[in-house]
């Protein structure tokens, strides 16, 4: 608890607060000049938009229409319709309504095939809110636009897998 400040300390304090601001006058500003330069986006970025991935070798969609993401979404913005042919499930429709997304990444976490990922790129602002409804085509296109973030379903699930054997004896 500070005592009553003496006169000399008072003047000191005034000079010190002027000094603190003065010091900053000659420091380089911390500003990142956004449209001109961009700050690095970390690997685990999940403030961006989404994409549906395709298999690198076969070119098939990864989504099997299992509806796990639809079930887990707290915001209830994912709509998946399942159709079955050629021995596996496919998403007939896949709609992700970015208007109400809370970017919790739960859909990514539960995905058993790494089909839905978050991207290291921002969703562009729109003048028409319907433009934020991402249907399957848009989500597939998104994959080419930005690179995917670190988190993917299988990776996260492996991280959460309780270790089989105790490490410590």
């Amino acid at each position, binding site marked *: 608890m500070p005592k009553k400040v003496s006169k000399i300390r008072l003047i000191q304090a005034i000079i010190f607060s002027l000094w603190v601001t003065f010091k900053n*006058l000659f420091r380089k500003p911390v*500003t990142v000049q956004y449209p001109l330069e961009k700050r690095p986006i970390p690997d685990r970025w999940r403030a961006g938009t989404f994409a549906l991935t395709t298999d690198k070798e076969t070119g098939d969609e990864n989504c099997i229409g299992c509806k796990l993401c639809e079930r887990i979404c707290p915001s209830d913005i994912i709509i998946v319709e399942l159709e079955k042919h050629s021995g596996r499930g496919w998403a007939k429709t896949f709609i992700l309504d970015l208007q109400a997304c809370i970017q919790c990444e739960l859909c990514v976490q539960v995905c058993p095939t790494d089909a839905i990922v978050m991207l290291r790129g921002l969703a562009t602002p729109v003048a028409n809110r319907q433009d934020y409804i991402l249907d399957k085509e848009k989500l597939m296109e998104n994959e080419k636009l930005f690179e995917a973030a670190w988190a993917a379903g299988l990776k996260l699930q492996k991280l959460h897998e309780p270790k089989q054997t105790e490490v410590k004896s």
Partner: protein
Amino acid sequence: MIYIQGLVQSAILLGAILGIVAYLTWLERKFSGRLQSRVGPYLVGRPHGWLQPIADGLKLISKEDITPSRADRLLFNLAPAWIVVVSLLGFAFLPLTANWVLVNMDLGLLYFTAIGSLLVIGVFAAGWASNNKYALLSSLRSAAQIVAYEVPLLLSLLVPAILAGSLDFKDIIEAQESYWFITFPVIGQISFLIFLLAALAESNKMPFDLSEAESELIAGFNIEYSGMKFAYFYLGEYAHLMAVSLLVSIVFFGGPLGPLLPGGLWIAIKTLAVFLGILWIRWSFLRIRIDQLMMLNWKILTPISFINLLLAGLWVSLNL
């Protein structure tokens, strides 16, 4: 003929001042930006946003002009004009070089402070006419504040006047040939400090910007003003600040006096330095409370400036 000459001169002066004032707002934004380790205006007129004041001005012109339905229309529209006119009037008596002044007057210093104190009428009218409680509170605050701080302001300005033996700016400048009044031991510095504080209070700048206290009274007396009328307040505020800086540089820093460079340049440099100093103070301190403000004035500044004035008078009369 003399009228036309005066008209032309004042038109030039007016244009120059308005241009300078517009760019002072830009300067403040850049300067405060650097103090706060950011960049300030940059993208409008790249680099460094030198078109920013022009954009602001043009935008304010094109905005809708709103008069609240229950406002006092006459006063509401008169107040911004009053503020601008009064703050520009001050420049008429301030010498800009050693021998160039629009109106030369024996009582220049007194007249300048008299004009300056008229500002309060505009502020009060604006606050009252807006029919808004925040504006009313703000205008009451600012009336109390400006009227109270006139006392130490004038008393501290009288010190240089006594030292120079005249109220004429020309004489004051001439008297500083040998030394600037700021360097006068004790008396000069005290009167400078008191003047600075009182001037900050009078022009509503931090730490005394109670009438515009954003966190308390939202925007103060100009809360209901939009578009160009608001721009007038902005303009008036900065013009007044510039006038005060100019006055300080003349009365305490020897105005146009200085080696090598021409007088006009010296006065510009000094004014700018004082202006930046005021900004530096502004962006470094918190606001004080209204009762503390009044306490500071009546219990500290006014007595000290009285004593200071007395000392100055004694010194001058003993030397004579």
